[in-house]
């Protein structure tokens, strides 16, 4: 096995063995599953309990097949009033002419009862009205809410994983530098093998995390039934997200390792990573914005600009439909940026990681030799 793989394997084994990783994984899985159930509680199909006093039940079910209606009949108006005030029923139809409610009637229910009542009366005199055909000539918005939900979850998960893993990489680099293990390691490994192994190993752990989220999310959505509302093309989205994660992670983790190699103590990691943290936060905020306005100018433009594209493009893909060529173009740009960052990161790391003690200045490193 070559050096890089040995280093990667050590990272994976070490992390997998920690309680923090396992517990983190379980919590993420549960959280995602719960989130994918949530829409059901927030906007489940409507259900109404209705009453009649001396009236016929209206054929509401035929007009609103998604909703459920339960009918009760009351002997007189007084009993009906009592039930309405007690909240047992949402509305009571009295004598086929008026409706009792507690406060103003639910707007949807009101419109529904009015129009069905009209239809029934007209039908009774022989007038039949064909239902209106609805047709959208704009974007297909059937899946909009599901898309927005997926994009939301994706933004948060991608951000947490990209940011979290980049910080873990930085701490690992400083651990090795500060404790001087790097001196022994670098007498049997080349710097790029050590750096690459760490990034690959922690990246695999990030992918394990991401896969867990995806599986838990789909399992939850299938169990709760909202998977039925998912837009077509989910496998493509999942594949896209995985590729984007790999690109974004490699980009941020490499920079994070390079910056971390400038310092020798864990306490300094935070401050040396500040510029990078700010870029990541900016990416995150634009991604949140893109969730709500995936076709807007800001989201569209930044979905081509590395490293923003690593989060914005998958969010755009989830929140709206993105043509294949746009994804490809954006990925190519990101891959180029990644190559540049790898060259830069490897150089900084190689020159700085053996210079223990005071914080090494980035300028000195780049100027040296």
């Amino acid at each position: 096995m070559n050096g890089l793989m040995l280093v990667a394997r050590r990272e994976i084994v070490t992390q997998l063995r920690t309680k923090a990783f396992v517990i983190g994984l379980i919590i993420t899985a549960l959280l995602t599953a719960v989130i994918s159930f949530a829409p059901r509680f927030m906007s489940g199909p409507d259900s109404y309990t209705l009453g009649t006093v001396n009236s016929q039940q209206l054929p509401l079910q035929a007009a609103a097949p998604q909703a459920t209606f339960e009918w009760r009949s009351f002997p007189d108006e007084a009993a009906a009033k009592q039930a309405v005030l007690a909240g047992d029923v949402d509305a009571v139809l009295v004598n086929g002419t008026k409706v009792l409610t507690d406060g103003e009637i639910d707007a949807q229910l009101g419109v529904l009862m009015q129009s069905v009542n009209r239809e029934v009366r007209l039908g009774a005199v022989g007038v039949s009205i064909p239902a209106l055909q609805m047709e959208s000539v704009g974007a297909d918005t059937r899946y909009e809410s599901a898309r927005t939900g997926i994009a939301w979850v994706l933004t948060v998960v991608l951000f947490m994983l990209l940011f979290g893993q980049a910080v873990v990489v930085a701490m690992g680099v400083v651990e090795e530098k500060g404790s001087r293990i790097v001196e022994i390691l670098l007498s049997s490994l080349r710097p790029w093998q050590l750096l690459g192994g760490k990034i690959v190993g922690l990246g695999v752990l990030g992918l394990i995390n991401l896969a867990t989220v995806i599986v838990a999310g789909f399992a939850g959505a299938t169990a709760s039934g909202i998977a039925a509302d998912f837009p077509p093309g989910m496998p493509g989205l999942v594949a896209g997200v995985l590729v984007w994660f790999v690109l974004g992670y490699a980009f941020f983790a490499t920079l994070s390792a390079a910056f971390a190699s400038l310092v020798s103590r864990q306490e300094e990691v935070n401050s040396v990573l500040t510029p990078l943290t700010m870029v990541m936060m900016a990416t995150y905020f634009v991604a949140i914005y893109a969730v709500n306005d995936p076709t807007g100018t800001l989201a569209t433009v930044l979905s081509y600009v590395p490293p923003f594209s690593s989060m914005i493009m998958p969010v755009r893909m989830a929140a709206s439909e993105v043509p294949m060529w746009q994804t490809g173009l954006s990925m190519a740009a990101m891959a180029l940026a990644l190559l540049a960052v790898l060259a830069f990161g490897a150089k900084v790391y190689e020159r700085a990681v053996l210079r223990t003690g005071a914080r090494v200045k980035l300028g000195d490193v780049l100027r040296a030799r």
Partner: protein
Amino acid sequence: MLEISELRKRFAGGPDAPGGKVALDGISFAVRPGEMFGFVGANGAGKTTTMRIVMGVLQADSGSVSWQGKRLDYDVRRRFGYMPEERGLYQKMRVAEQIEYFGRLHGLSPAAAKKATDDLLERLGVAERRNDAVQALSLGNQQRVQLAVALVHDPEVLVLDEPFSGLDPIAVDALATALQERCRGGVPVIFSSHQLELVERLCDSVGIVAAGRMVATGTVADLRAEEGNTLRVVVRDPAPGWADGLPGTVTVSGDRHVLRTAGGDDQEVLRRAMKAGHVEHFGVEQSTLTEIFKEAVA
């Protein structure tokens, strides 16, 4: 042969030393296969800097290091064993796993790494701690693990920076034996130390550095010969002025006169002493490495 020639290194100075600090000023020496080389020198003399350059973790400004006639590169150094001055281990990793990991990094197969680890743990007396995290070990035991890391891949050359510091006498013996065995197998061993008696006892040859230069190299016997041996004569109750005209110095304690002299005609000294009084002691005193060292760096 491991050849270190004309190494120079200057560290960039801070605001107080704008010219920088010369750590190595053209240091050269060679270590033969199977030779144990003791590297001694005052604090800040340049031992660590030299060893770090040999191991490639520091770049020299000029000069070269070669092994068997070849300039050192990454592939050659990979077969070296190194113990840095500032110890470094993964604190949370288990002892045996850690040694095996380094064995694998040096190119051993999993089975070979495991076997070498077991042997070393046994030999260095930390076998019962094999499954403990390194941080749970005492400093001396961590040091033994560090040594195991340097030895696990059966290196071709050993470069050890103060390997004996912090070890108890039993561990010192265990390590000494382990190193002597490697030497007998043809491995050149360089180690630095401030424990000069130990260096004197173990090493075939010694190099003394001062201010980045090698001021003396050779076997301890060679260095002694260079230094010149001291003749020590003890005479009881001699006639006053008996040693007038002889080289050396006389110290008097009670009725005993002690003459110390380096050089001169020892037979003449003996005749004069016997004429002067009762000769209680006449012999050549070997200078210790400590004395040679103090003389050399003075």
